[in-house]
Structures are given as C-alpha cells and as structure tokens.
C-alpha cells in the first residue's frame, strides 16, 4: 500500500527548545503550547514509540525545560492552562496542533526537512516545498486514544487522500497518539 516506510536506526533524544532552531520560530511558537496542553506531562518528558511500515520500530525521547521554553514563550504556563481547559481541546485543534509540533521534531531529526508553510484543509498539512503542482510535505494527525490500531485505520484514509492529490510530488504521514504514546511515520509518495 505504501511506496516506502522509514524508521530511524537509533532512539531519538530531543529537547523541545531546539524546535525553535530546527523549524521556523513561528512554527515552534504556535505549536509547542498546544503540545504541552495535549500531553499534560508534569515530568517534562515523554517517550513515543515510532512505528514505520512493517516491523520497524524506534523511540522518540522528548524532554523539555519549562524555564527554557518560558524564556522563548512568555506566559507559556498560563497559555497551556487555557488551551488545556478551553474550546481548542473540544474542537480537536490542540491534539492537531500538538501533533504538528511532534511532526516538526520528526521532520527535523529523521527527514532533515524544514517546514515552510501550513495548509489546513488539504493534504499535506505541513509543507517543505510550496512549488505549485509539485508540493512536498507531511500530513499530520493527533489522536488522544486508540493507539496503533487507530493510527493504522487513519493511515489508510490519509494515504488515499495524498495519493489522489495530483499536485503532491512527495508526501509523508506522521500520525500521533498520546494514550498509549505511539506514532507512525510513513512515506506515501515518492
């Protein structure tokens, strides 16, 4: 079904503050608060099992310092509290935007790519290249339950949408679940 699958060869250790350097500042600024609101992780660390196609598996060991992030994002704690308790969660925007942050981590560490634009209503969500007729990017989704089986079902429909988009030259899927913490990274198109 997929043209290829990728999983990194070793555990990835990543400090979230590095996202401000690895991706555009606006991307980190607007997605990191959603990620923290979504994870609700008092230990300032979270490990995800990364699954590629077939049996390939790796780990993403994410950590952060609240103080270091607050230095980049004044008022972070209050904003996270608002996002965690507000409409954004109900509207599923916080899981979606939180998943954008995680996909940004994977794009930087595994794919060595930089996000240059966001598209909300057509795949792929995050673009590495906006050239009309030859888009390159990564389609992202975040779920708060159902684990790997839920992500696999999601991958089917999202892959189909990417394949049926004639102006996408390179398409990836990056799907995330917080309970349990698992992720899929798949290359769908060349």
């Amino acid at each position, binding site marked *: 079904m997929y043209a290829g699958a990728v999983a990194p060869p070793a555990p990835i250790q990543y400090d979230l503050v590095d996202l401000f350097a690895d991706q555009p500042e606006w991307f980190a600024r*607007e997605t990191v608060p959603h990620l923290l609101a979504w994870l609700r992780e008092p230990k300032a660390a979270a490990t995800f099992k990364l699954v590629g196609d077939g049996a390939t598996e790796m780990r993403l060991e994410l950590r952060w310092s609240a103080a270091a992030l607050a230095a980049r994002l004044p008022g972070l704690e209050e*904003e996270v509290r608002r996002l965690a308790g*507000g409409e954004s969660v109900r509207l599923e*925007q916080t899981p979606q935007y939180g998943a954008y942050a995680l996909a940004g981590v994977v794009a930087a560490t595994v794919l060595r790519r930089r996000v240059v634009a966001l598209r909300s*209503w*057509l795949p792929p969500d995050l673009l590495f290249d906006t050239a009309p*007729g030859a888009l390159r990017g990564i389609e992202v989704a975040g779920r708060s339950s159902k684990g790997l089986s839920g992500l696999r079902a999601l991958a089917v429909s999202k892959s189909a949408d990417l394949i*049926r*988009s004639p*102006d996408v030259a390179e398409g990836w899927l990056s799907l995330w679940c917080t309970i349990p913490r698992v992720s899929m990274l798949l290359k769908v198109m060349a």
Partner: protein
Amino acid sequence: MNALYDALQGQTSAMRLSAPRLRAAGGDGPIEAAVVLHEVERMEARALASLGPVDGMTRLRSAVERCGLLVEARNPTTVLHDLWPEVWVAAEGAPAAAVEASLRRLRPAVEALHAESRAVIARHPALARSARSSLLSGKAALIKTYAALGSYLEAFPGDWSGWQFAAQSAHVLRRMGEAWRAVRFARRFAPDDVGGWSLEVNIATDVLPPEELGPWLDRAAAELYRGAGNADVALAIAGGYAMLSRDSMHSHVQRMELLARADAAAARSEAMLRAAPDAELRRYVRGMQMAIRELRAGREPTDAILDRAGLPELHEILDRHQHDAVAALRGRAAEIRALAA
C-alpha cells in the same frame, strides 16, 4: 519560485496557527481569531494572484483553503454565498478524483456550518428578514432583531455582514458605543468594503469627541484622496467635517479650515458620481454642498436648502434633529445609504 508567493505562504501559516491561541484567550478572542483568519484568506487570494496563470489543481487547492479559513472563522454568510460556490467553479478545472479527495475535509465542515446557521436563524425568526426590512420595521421590532443579532454573532463571530448589520441597527437605536464597536469589527473583517467604511465615518461623527474626530477624519480623507472609497464615503467625510466645524471649541480660522475640507470631500463625492451616477445620492451631495456654502459664508443653513437640493421629504424629520438642517441632511443620508448598502 515566486518570492512574493513564498513570503505570503510563510506569513499566512504563522497567522493561521495563531487563531486557536487567540480564541482560547477569551473575551473578544473568538472575534480576534476570526479577524486574523479573514486576513489570511485575503492574503491567500493575493498569493494565488501573484502566481499568474495556474493549473486547475492549484486553483482548486487555493479555493478550498480560502473557504476552509472562513469556515474556521465561522462566517457562514461569506462561505455559503461566495467561497463555497468558488470552490465548485475551481473544481471544474481539476480531475474528478482529486476534487473528491479535496473536498473530503471541507464538505462536511461547510454542511455543518450551514446547518448551525439555519438552526440559529430558526431560533430567532427576526434574523430571517433582510437587513433593509429590519431597519425599516420600527424601533420595537428593530430592538428585537438587534437582540437576536447578538445571539447570532456569539455563534458566528466571523460573520462581518452580521457585524455591519449590528452597527447599522445600534446606530439607528442610538446605542452609539455598541454601534462603534460593531462597525470597528466589521471594518477589520472587510477593510475593502466601502459600505462598511461610509457607515464607520457616519458613526465616528456621532461617537468620537471633537478632539479625536478631526484627526480621524483627516486620516479617512487622506485614504480617500489616495484613490480609495466611493461617493458615499466622500459624502460621509464631508458631513463629518461640516458637523465638526460647528463645535464651539473651534476658532473662526479652524472652522473655515474644516469647512474647506468638507467642501473638498463633497466635491470629490460629486466627481465620483460623474463616473457612477446615482440620482438619490446626487441630491444629498448637492444639499451638503449648499449647506457647506452657507456655513462658509457665516450663515446657519435653513431648511430651505432641503427644497433647493430636491429633498423636500426631509422636512418631516427636522423635529428629530432639533430643526438642524445639516444634521437632518447628514443623518438621513447615513440611514438611506446604509439601506442601499
């Protein structure tokens, strides 16, 4: 690659990501988020235009994004009247399978927004009437409609035509603070809408204290003389200066300067009407020019100018304006033009 296109893509991405944060901030946050999403939608249209001729799929992709942005902004009027139909026009140039995939996310969102707006209107039947008939329906009915509009805008904070209607209603009901707030939002949502601009000038004239109104009108006039606006806006600015000139805080010299600006704006309105004739508006412009001439000559305009301008019907509303012919002229022009818009 097109540098402007790339720059706009990056800029709009940052702005659209900020919308949930603004919304979560509470208070006017949902309105501010909707304002940002409308700005992103306009930038998206500019980005596409910067590319020149493009293939069907690129056009469809842009139409879907623009429509989706205003779905997220909760503006059912523009989505259902303009952008959703534009998606279908753009779809004509794209492969059928791609169209189906392209609409998989958007179609249910548009349908849900439509259903929600119908449900809100069903709960508030006053909203089903046109803005024009509501504004003409008398004070008691307008108060009811205005209350229903509040509920509607709570559900759909991005519907700028709703904000414009709310501003018109509040202005007619003399709830000036609310009229000003509503028209400021309407203008931020749709800065290119000249109907909203002339409404804003008319409300500003009634709301702003004289020391603020002068600079405010100067900025509006500067924009007008740069080529923006239309005859309505120019007349509203002329009326604003004319009303301001009569404030007792001004010296004779200042008064004459303000009246010169009023005259220039009225002349601009007259010139614009030559390009786009409008007999009714022409009579109001003529009346305003006569009133300004009287004021510049040091005379208070009498109600005789109403007949000379071809506006005899305004005699009937002189009572409401303390027999002030200029106020009646300006006030009625604002009401009539709001209805025309």
